[in-house]
């Protein structure tokens, strides 16, 4: 990867990382985090770690970030409330944590071996082709079983989340009766978590 490109990508990474912590709206913070992670994925690919780059994009941006977004929507988080006195302890520990991380980074950079002294991996190491080779030979059974596992998760989610009226053979009148001693009606969706909020 040319040095200019790296500097460009690194600048975007730092800027978007700052965006994560400096913005007020959680959704904006999250979008900045997505940008950071995507930028890192591009860097990985530029450095030749194609598989890691794609995994970064798929797993972090595709799956984990969407999960974050769901949680934010579910809890209906608004712009954060700053300036409370109890935030002081949080800030203190944040500063201490950042200091520890910087110290660790410094130690690693000083002690890092020069690229010349490193073992070079075999040519196709970490490539998509070698990943596919491993998945479809040695780990074929685990791979296929995982696809079934995802199918089970989908079936289970549908079975649990389907509207009760659609489930089973109960007519609406029967369905309204509690099924067992501890039975209760399905909880109605209360409007309070929509109307409420922290802002």
């Amino acid at each position: 990867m040319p040095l200019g490109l790296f500097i460009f990508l690194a600048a975007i990474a730092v800027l978007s990382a700052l965006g994560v912590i400096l913005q007020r709206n959680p959704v904006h913070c999250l979008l900045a985090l997505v940008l950071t992670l995507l930028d890192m994925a591009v860097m990985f690919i530029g450095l030749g770690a194609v598989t890691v780059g794609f995994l970064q994009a798929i797993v972090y941006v595709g799956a984990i970030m969407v999960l974050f977004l769901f949680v934010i929507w579910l809890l209906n988080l608004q712009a954060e409330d700053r300036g409370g006195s109890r935030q002081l302890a949080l800030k203190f520990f944040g500063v201490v944590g950042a200091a520890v991380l910087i110290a660790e980074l410094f130690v690693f950079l000083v002690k890092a071996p020069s690229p010349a002294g490193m073992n070079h991996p075999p040519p196709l190491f970490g490539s998509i082709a070698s990943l596919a080779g491993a998945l479809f030979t040695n780990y074929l059974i685990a791979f296929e079983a995982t696809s079934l596992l995802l199918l089970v998760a989908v079936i289970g989610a549908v079975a649990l989340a389907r509207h009760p009226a659609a489930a089973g053979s109960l007519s609406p009148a029967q369905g309204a009766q509690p099924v067992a001693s501890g039975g209760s009606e399905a909880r109605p969706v209360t409007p309070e978590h929509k109307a409420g909020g922290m802002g």
Partner: protein
Amino acid sequence: MAQLNLAAISYSWLPICPLAIVAVSAMIVLLVGVHVRDDESESLGALTLVLLSFAFMFTLGLLGRSGIAFAGAISIDNFATFFELTILLSVALVVLMSIEYAPALGISAAEYYALLLFSTLGMMLMATAGDLIVIFVGFELMSIGVYVLAGFLRRNVKSSEAAIKYFILGAFSTGFLLYGIALIYGATGTIKLAAISAALAGPLATNPLLLSGLGLLLIGFAFKVAAVPFHMWTPDAYEGAPTPVTAFMAVGVKLGAFAAFLRIFMVHLNLASAHWSWVLWVIAALTMTLGNLSALVQTNIKRMLAYSAIAHAGYILVGMAAAGPQAGGAILYYLLGYAFTNLGAFAVVIALERRGTAGDRISDYRGLAARHPALAGVMTLFLLSLTGVPPLAGFLGKFYIFSAALNMGMIWLVIIAVLNSVVSAYYYIRVIVAMYMQEGGAEPSPLDSRPALIAALTVAAIATVLIGLYPNPYMAGALHAFTSAFGAVSPTAALLVR
């Protein structure tokens, strides 16, 4: 593009035939279920039974075969086949119990039977796995299906509570298991069980990384077999889940988890038994004692059977602590008898359960003998077998396990186990006393309209007596199954696995 070296792997379909049949069956049931009307869901149960019997036939054909397939991911031997057959039989009984139960409670049949079959697939995968990744995926396949099944009564708060508790704690235990696998991989550089056991012969045997990995693996399995101190979820999950699912959890999940547990520890990590045997000693003693003492005070029969299941896991762990081929064979025999006995007991619970007021209190069993002598009779049979009264299956299972432990010099553990059996007699016989010597109680819904449940009860009762009266073929089969798995770990076999 790198060329895939396909020739280096043996893609023999034979060893995974039963697995493939069960997987395809689950999808067939799901697809057919779309076209089956809700009031005809019995036919879906019947279809599931037919498909299961296909899988059973194919598995029977695998008896006596042994070998390694798919680069060591699948190891087929009589040990795996024995477990697969037992699991398939248990699931068939669970399906029989569900056929009339599911429509009565408004359970949507297609998803129910499909998830049951997928969980079965996970159990069979655990029984026949040759490496830790396949065991892990099988573990998850089994667990996720059962989490959902436990919460199938969506209008019932207890069912939802059972599913949530089981899911949260189960996910936690999966984390332990996966971390253990990662540490073992870090220590030995392989996930193939045969290669790990070969590595144990070398200087790695006391590697702290490997031993911590073993410890975490043990915690993961102890969660699934409900051993103390990882048993907290059991009573709530067993009580809240639909009763056929409870039976499935008490028997099927235990079979699957013990299959992998036994294969990893007693077969492949046998060389390191000095490191884990004493841990299992302690866990076994705690599990038996706590399970039996807690069962004494239960008033709900499903909770009582849950604590009884914990206690039985303790008896099996006594055999595991003894670590040897004799104990292994005894455990397999024990599990076979336990499966039928426990499924039978849960089938009686289903017979007494009714809509609205679930008849699952022990007081509901009062006077059952006067109203339904046959039902009370088979319940007595199952409870006596669980207690360990000769000549039923439960007695010989305990006898073989305890004598194997005695042969290994674990006198104190056997004394604790026998004392526990005496304690357990109290709460099992309390139900029998209620059925025969007390008045009142609940009226079970008429059995005449439930032929599938009667079939399940009959099969379980006959098997409980038969396995106890003619133990020799089963015990010989179990012993042979276990020793054949031992044979597969000879150094030459380990070398074959790359």
